[in-house]
């Protein structure tokens, strides 16, 4: 093999090994701030303090581990208001390389159909080898987003992943279901949603936090992505929130004192409710 062939061969191997990972993260109202539904919109009042969604931190951590093992680049992507940049900075502080925020007032009020459309457009632009999602949004407003995005991107997907490996151009995930776990392999490029069981996220180091402030951050509008107004917001959504009420009082709370028959009474209670 000539020196030139060797160089191109190495370059090809390096390209195969190094992986570009896009991590989709969501900023949610901080669990500590009292959560409220905004009576005007019926949606979660997001004006309070905000933090990176807990499982998204697991996704960022997984991306970091993969990058440490294989080399490559990590870009964190989010759709949200300007202040979502703070959460993106947390991901940068952990070690992600770049952040992309799609921030446009027209996006407000978007449901799954609309949000997945915008996110897919942003991800197409990145053309990552692997797109990672965190599995559970603590405000459960973003649950199941990954499956919708994977369909729009026309990429294979694995969700509920508790263990992830990359080998050559294949991702193998251990997927947890109600019945046990399956092991599934997908060729890259692919979409993977990870569960919080997958890893213990690192704390950003002080140096990481300080350098995060100078890492590249892009803020995009819908126009930058070529997304039309009618595909987002209330117009682009296919679901509505109509009103809210306290839940119906839990039928008949019962309180009894044990007179020797408590166990029997409990069994009767459970049987009545078809819990046995």
């Amino acid at each position, binding site marked *: 093999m000539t020196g030139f062939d060797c160089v191109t061969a190495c370059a090809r191997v390096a390209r195969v090994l190094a992986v570009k990972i896009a991590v989709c993260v969501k900023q949610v109202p*901080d*669990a*500590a*701030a*009292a959560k409220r539904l905004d009576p005007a919109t019926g949606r979660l009042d997001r004006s*309070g*303090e905000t933090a990176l969604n807990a499982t998204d931190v697991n996704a960022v951590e997984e991306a970091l581990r993969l990058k440490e093992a294989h080399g490559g680049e990590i870009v964190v992507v989010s759709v949200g208001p300007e202040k979502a940049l703070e959460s993106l900075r947390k991901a940068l502080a952990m070690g992600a390389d770049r952040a992309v925020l799609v921030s446009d007032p027209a996006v407000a009020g978007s449901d799954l159909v609309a949000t997945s459309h915008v996110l897919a457009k942003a991800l197409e632009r990145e053309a990552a080898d692997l797109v990672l999602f965190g599995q559970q949004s603590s405000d459960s407003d973003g649950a199941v987003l990954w499956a919708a995005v994977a369909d729009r991107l026309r990429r294979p997907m694995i969700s509920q992943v508790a263990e992830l490996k990359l080998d050559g151009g294949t991702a193998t995930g251990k997927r947890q279901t109600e019945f046990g776990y399956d092991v599934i392999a997908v060729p890259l490029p692919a979409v993977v949603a990870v569960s919080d069981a997958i890893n*213990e*996220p*690192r*704390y*950003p*180091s*002080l*140096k990481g*936090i*300080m350098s995060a*402030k100078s890492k590249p951050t892009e803020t995009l509008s819908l126009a930058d992505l070529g997304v039309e107004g009618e595909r987002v917001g209330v117009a682009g959504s296919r679901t509505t929130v109509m009103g809210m009420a306290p839940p119906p009082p839990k039928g008949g709370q019962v309180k009894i004192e044990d007179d020797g028959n408590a166990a029997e009474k409990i069994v009767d209670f459970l049987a009545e409710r078809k819990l046995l």
Partner: protein
Amino acid sequence: MTAIRAADYPPPFSSAEAIGAPTDAADERIEVGVLVVGGGPGGLACAIRLGQLLQEQPELAERLGDVPVALVDKGKQPGSHLLSGAVMNPRAVRRLFKGRPDQLDGIPTYGEVHREGVYLLTKGRALRIPPPPTMRNHGNWIVSISQLARYLADQAETAGTMVLPETSADTLLVDHGRVVGIRTGDKGRGKEGEPLGNFEPGADIVAKVTVLAEGTAGHLTAAAVDRFGLHGRNPQIWELGVKEVWRVAKPLDRIVHTLGWPLRKGARYREFGGSWIYPMGDELVSLGFVIGLDYRDVELSAHDLLQEFKTHPFVRKLLDGGERVAWGAKTISSGGFHSLPRKLNAPGLLLVGESAGLVNIPRLKGVHYAIESGRLAAEAAVRALGRGEVPGRIGALDSYDDELLGGYVGRELREVRNMRQAFDKGFFVGGALASAMTVTKGKLPPGELGTEPNADAPLLKTNRAAGYPAADGALTFDKLSSVFASGNRTRDDQPNHVRIERRVPREVAELWSWMCPAQVYEVGEDDGDGLVQVKLTPSNCVQCGAITAKGGRLTPPEGGSGPEYTLT
């Protein structure tokens, strides 16, 4: 029979533990120009003023490197650990933002004080009394100190400060007799201190000047005072305040302070304190109960006193139809002038705000002192960093002391210097003495009153707890649900950050158990010799600092843990 004192069972802690030389390799250390420890109004004012000055002096800014000003705070974000009434004298922010009306106008407030009332409470009645001369608040601003800090942090960042929340200051770095920075706390340790999977060691941050603005019961401040022999004439003493914010049905039209019930007047109890109730706009009310930690009764509980206080018809009426939306607790340094360190600076070090003891208890004012001292500290630091100066030289920062104590902060503290101590003599005698002091601006009575450390108070027991109301979940609340309302969700497997003697007489264990607003301490099993074990749940801790006053030592836990105050 000798009285039992918490002070006889000191915690396993020595200041030397919090002082050390840098340990990271020289090229691993994080270098900044000026490091501010603490993101309260004092630290933030210092950072803001530094930013202003560095803008005017670009070559100095250049010399200070990539990060000319850095500020660390142990809370989740600036404001997370801040709690106060608060009615703030705007004079210090006006000075800080002189010539910058936009920044001044942007300060979040709940309006100016127009009306105020002081009431003496008895069990069933509230008697309006003329406000003592120290309590004239007309024109002062009602603020949430937590919100104020968030605003000031934004201003500090805009002015060029690198704000680093979730970062605790564990050790003061001292090298060749000079303060050279701090070491931040580790993260990711387990219950026994063992490194967990995501262990992240702390880092040495080295700076040319270090400003300690840690607030009440400052960890590094106390160590620095010991290390550099800066003890003041009297030891520091504290009050403990427990606060709630309520959404109310009817707006409150005045700020209110109360004295008297449910505290006892007799001198032997040493129960000094009272309450505040402040409107926060039309929809919210801030209320809190404060008690001096020199009290003697083992069963005194500031949290439960607040709950009891709310059952008074006067207060109940104000809260009727409302709901509690926040809770928190924090100590206040109350030793005043004589408890100030004899110097507020050391080589490479400046002490700012409440951690230096700059609080005027009779006026219930400290926020503007913190801001003013932060501003002056910044100016002294910049002078000492000027071309040809060496900030580590002994005396290089003395101009800070001169300006601060020569200005209104020093003057006002001196006027009321004996007032708090007078109340050791009980409500009536103390009250009379306080009046005398006010009228004569501190000249009478003659002499200087000493102070006993809070932990020295001989304990007594009077079945006081029988008077506390049971929690009803609507007007009155238990400690655990209150800790929840503070936003505290500290992970449970963190190492214990509270230093106390674990085997103590039952009375001392009970003292701590009642004292702590967050139910960190519980009386454990009998340990023989008339001693009991003290059971700890450190993850409940809201870092109020009371234990430091009453026989133990609070050290900073992992950065980012503790309460997440937003409205206090």
